[in-house]
């Protein structure tokens, strides 16, 4: 099975990246790094999808020379999904960054734990 991982090196890398991104998003305390983690995670998925769409020896799915044969082109679906996914991740990234800005403006920290402590103090007072 390990050999399989080597054949599918793109997917292997994608999964490792996913794991790293996921962990960063979950456990890192710095907000910017969390967002980076999120992006890594998303990107890993796109890499995985892109790898899935690739077929050896075929063309990109744009009709050239009027050839309309399924065996001539790669699978267009993953590309479309990646496209959609990118926009989604851009949107969420923007939103997260905007939130981070507001939090930073207010608490002067990017450390989520610090922020939560200060929030707590604010409530207390």
């Amino acid at each position, binding site marked *: *099975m390990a050999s*399989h991982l080597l*054949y*599918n*090196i793109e997917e*292997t890398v994608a*999964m*490792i990246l*996913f*794991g*790293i991104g*996921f*962990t960063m998003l979950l*456990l*890192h*305390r*710095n*907000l*910017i790094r969390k967002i980076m983690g999120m992006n890594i995670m998303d990107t890993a998925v796109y890499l995985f999808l892109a790898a*899935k*769409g*690739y*077929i*050896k020896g*075929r063309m*990109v*799915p*744009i*009709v050239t020379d009027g050839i*309309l*044969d*399924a065996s001539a082109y790669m*699978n*267009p*679906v*993953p590309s*479309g999904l990646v*496209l*959609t996914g990118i*926009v*989604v991740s*851009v*949107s*969420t990234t*923007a*939103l997260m*960054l*905007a939130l981070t*800005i*507001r939090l*930073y*403006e207010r608490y002067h*920290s*990017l*450390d989520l*734990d*610090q922020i939560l*402590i200060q929030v*707590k*103090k604010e409530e207390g007072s």
Partner: protein
Amino acid sequence: MSRRKDNYETSRWRQFMQWLAGEIDPLTAAKVGMIQEKAETLPDEKMERGKVSTLQATPGNESDEREAHSAAAQAEKAAGQAKSAMAAEPWLNQPSGESRGLRLYRRFYQVMSILLCMGIISVLLWTIAYLPIFGNAGNPDNNEVSARYIEKGLDETGAVNMVTGMILDYRAFDTFGESCVLFIASCCVLVLLRIDNDGGSESWKKRQTEANDRIFEPKNDIILQKCACVLVPVILVFGIYIILNGHLSPGGGFSGGAVLGSGLILYLNAFGFQKAERIFNGKIYQRITVSALTFYCLAKSYSFFTGANHLNSGIPLGTPGNILSSGLILPLNICVGLVVACTMYAFYTLFRKGGM
């Protein structure tokens, strides 16, 4: 529940539950203690430590103070450093076992993070070890779906670029949803960052000045302006090209829109807000976005409705390969491009000064 409030607040059970709930952790509890006892001088430390009531607060004050200093310094630099890097150094030199619990906790946290990461990765790798082989034409995803997209896409959508044809015609609903994601994200950013003039109140002015970073902006940087003069039109034209040729070549509304947006951002950077706002401001942004999305919405609704009811949509597909072809794809690409461009630009301005 007959427990008294005051007992309960300080009880270990409560702290444990809070910790479970992620509200505090031993570390942060220590910090709370730190903030209260910041004024304490070092010689008193040992005595004071005896008074610290909570379990979590006991890991010494000195380390906390140092950490607080470093944290404050970092906050000033506005750079989030990795907590391990920030935390590890001062403590390794700690002579006594005061910060032991804290240090152990950090270590534990780190180790656990790595273990979790490894765990997720290994599970996923284990999974993909059983997945189809990379680049193989016989994989399950190369089935009748992609075959039809390729073989009949040209006839059915009129788009030469099959990906565009797929996302804007076969799976147009997804794409519409995706535009809505962008739209709602921009709305959220607006909520967060737009600074509305509520009659010139103090808070407004304060936020306005806080958010305004125009002092850092290059003022009339001649090199930049000249370069921009050359580049911006090229970029804009390129973006328009990408949008208009979305159904013919790689590209489309999203990518083209992003290029357009970056051109506008360059323009803004080069010539400042005042000039930029002459050609593009909040109202224009709003109008463009709304009209583009409205058109998108109406057009696609029409197409969905006709499609679902097996009616002929009556939109000519034109000759594949021409600019004016493939039915609704071109106008939709334009709409998407406009929306994306506006949104990108809006993100940028909002992030910088909280308004357009």
